[in-house]
């Protein structure tokens, strides 16, 4: 087991290093940050001065090695766009907002998806099942940004029940969280439904019914537990996807999280911040996958490295 965890950890670190190389290279393919930061009126002298000041006149491999060396010490450099702030400092400052939004979106997706998925499976081919299928269809076909704008229009502009955008009290979280979590509701619901359908036909479930257990216990205590493996796997990936995939929703709702930070950093060609965000996001993904793999190994002893 320890060997398994050790190998998985090394693989994760390797993947993280490759990500750093990819993001470093790709960022520089998107153009010179001087062209983003300096206005058109700037002349060549200004370009040369600033390039030298920011170290962009050095060879690429030197820039990368400098970046890597500093990153291993926890220094991801200073932001070029947000003067006076370190890149990691900005990401850590914005991360709570994203975690908050992702957490609420996740909670909404679980609270809605679980009962709909279970009932849809139990009442297969009934109006309840049809309702579940419609939820799934809408959830997976409606673009989240469109949904966000429509929700904003209805609930903020016309009804005036909720604010349009920004971060503040819980009322500001509702619309972006629903927009963000809506797709997950559909996916989780479908996973739960299909897993439950498999489990409901099992022999041991028939046995529980023969034993005289209430239908409620059969479904929620025995079937759901066994049907939870697939949704659990997706849950971990889902959680990290919500954290990293909130870019669009944060832009629509002006939610000051890491997604909006990423968009602004890309627009400004702030390589330091872009690199830091991608590496942090990669680490989150890798950590989530590692956790799931370790959980699997505990649950199923057959999963090991020889």
């Amino acid at each position, binding site marked *: 087991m320890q060997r398994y965890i050790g190998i998985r950890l090394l693989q994760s670190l390797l993947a993280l290093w490759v990500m750093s190389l990819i993001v470093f290279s790709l960022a520089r393919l998107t*153009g010179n940050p001087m062209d983003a930061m300096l206005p*058109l009126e*700037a002349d060549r002298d200004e370009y040369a*001065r600033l390039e030298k*000041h920011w170290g962009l006149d050095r060879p690429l491999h030197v820039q990368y090695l400098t970046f890597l060396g500093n990153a291993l010490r926890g220094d991801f450099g200073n932001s070029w766009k*947000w003067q006076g702030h370190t890149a990691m400092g900005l990401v850590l400052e914005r991360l709570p907002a994203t975690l908050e939004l992702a957490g609420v979106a996740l909670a909404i997706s679980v609270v809605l998806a679980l009962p709909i998925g279970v009932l849809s499976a139990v009442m297969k081919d009934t109006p309840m099942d049809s309702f579940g299928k419609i939820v799934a269809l809408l959830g997976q076909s409606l673009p989240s940004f469109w949904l966000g704008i429509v929700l904003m229009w209805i609930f903020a502009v016309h009804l005036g029940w909720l604010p349009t955008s920004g971060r503040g009290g819980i009322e500001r979280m509702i619309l972006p969280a629903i927009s963000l979590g809506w797709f997950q509701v559909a996916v989780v619901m479908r996973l739960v439904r299909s897993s439950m359908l498999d489990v409901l036909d099992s022999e041991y479930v028939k046995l529980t019914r023969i034993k005289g257990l209430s239908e409620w216990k059969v479904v929620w205590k025995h079937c759901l537990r066994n049907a939870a493996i697939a949704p659990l796997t997706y849950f971990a990936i889902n959680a990290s996807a919500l954290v990293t995939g909130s870019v669009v929703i944060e832009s629509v709702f002006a939610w*000051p999280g890491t997604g909006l930070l990423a968009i602004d950093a890309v627009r400004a060609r702030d390589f330091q911040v872009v690199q830091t965000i991608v590496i942090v996001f990669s680490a989150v993904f890798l950590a989530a996958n590692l956790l799931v793999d370790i959980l699997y190994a505990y649950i199923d002893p057959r999963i090991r490295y020889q």
Partner: protein
Amino acid sequence: MQHSRLYKSTLWIVVALLFLTFAGPTLPAQAAEGQAKVDRLVIGLILPFRDYFRPWINGTPDHNIQHDPVMEWLIEIDPDTGKYVPWLATSWKMAPDGLSWQVKLAEGVQFHHGYGEFTAKDLVHSHALWCDEAYPGRTDMPSSAYRKGMCMVNRVEVVNDHEVVMHCKNPCLDFEFYYSEGANVMIFSKAQWDKEGEMILETKPAGTGPYLFKERKLDQYVLYERGPTPHWKRGVVDWKEVQMTWTIEEPTRYAQILAGETHMTEVNKDLVDQAVGKGYKLIRSRGPAQQVQIFIGGLYFGTEDKETGRYTEHGGTTGKLDLKVPWTKKEVRQAMNKAINREEILEVLYKNRATLQYVGGFYPDLPGWDPTWEQRFPEMYGYDPDAARELLAKAGYPNGFKAKAWLVPFAGAPELIPLVEAVQTQLLEVGIELELVEADVVAGVTPVQRERRANWYLRAGPPSKKAVEAQIALFNGGQSIVHSFEDDTIYAMWQELLQIVDPVKRDALLRKIGNYKFENFEIIPLFDVYIEVLVDPNIVADWAFPGWDGGDIGHVWRITACKQEKPCK
């Protein structure tokens, strides 16, 4: 029976809730007479440009909007006349040789937070922040597109506390522009700098403006509060607080003003019209602030630098003039202009809320203007597809030719995309096929322009209003990365201009340069446009701003509150 009572009670509650919900928008609270209806004016803007206060770091005049409530400049651009008028400088006079300006400073102006009176030492300090590369206490190099112009003043001589002489390296007739709010030299307190250091400017900058900087939340907003005492020049401004917020998504910005979360915002013209139909108000800059035009790439007629005999300051490029490009011929450029139906574009895209542009960088209220352009324009540039085809045939392109045009989104000017598409359609009618290329300005366009490789490309752009000299330097003088129409004649005229002291002669030479550009069809000039802001007339009465306060919008102290019960239409 109980069920029936419960049902009826529930029904009444639901009806009451529905009534409250759909009863209509809540009316704003009525203000006490002579007061604004809200304490905090919220302005919904698109981009912060910079998320810090120190203007010399990657400086851009677009950043000025954030400084406008707090800081002041030597010279103001009057919104109503477009002229330079006194501000922290009460008068200024150029020496006969054009190499210095005697400037008298306002007296009794106090800095915020008790940092004393504004005097000559503060001007010396503010100038040095930009022009002294080794200024003690400043950690970052100063950088701004206008730095060369601002630092043409190479020495500030202090005569007394309220009088200085600003000495220039070369004749600096455009001093007024570079020390106005159109550029970056806002006045900082030397006393604060000496006492607190540089970083205090990010939390508690001491300016002399009517508002104090209160708080910044990165990427979200900046908050200002009214000064505790009446302002030395503006008196008591209307708002207790002013908040600038940033939202890049247009539907969200629009939703914010409709929901009452902002009181003024910028949206595209179609949404403006829709909002005006709902009762909102459109306020425009008092004068045109930008020129929408099509740049013609590849007009690199200037002599390149060889080993010696460098003609331009930044000669020597990797780009080459490519004579295979059809529009290197003047007749072709004229044909392209005559193929454009400007009136149609003006009506459809700009809702007739712009005026015709004649020459790039020239405005009626700036030096160098030639009133004959208006009369000559229809014959030389006016829409005439038949004449366009004749010109093309004469130039050797009877069947037209193929070329490309960049489609580059521009925050705040969404009309540029459909504009290029309209131009594509109109040019096709005379046989010119444009391939539209979506491009990112940083990755795709700027490097190509910088290296003079834009030979086959057209590009639409809205350069902002600035001093005419700055326009020529930028687009024709080879002084920056944007290379529009350049040739040895313009280079020579530009060099001559730099040495001219007499304002009358300078005006004449600027006119000569303008005519040269006009007669050589430098660009496809389209429109002089105004900056448009959508406001809630229940809250805001008016806003007088010239449109070229550096960041296009400024004069925040001229945003007046609606103090009457009815909306201020």
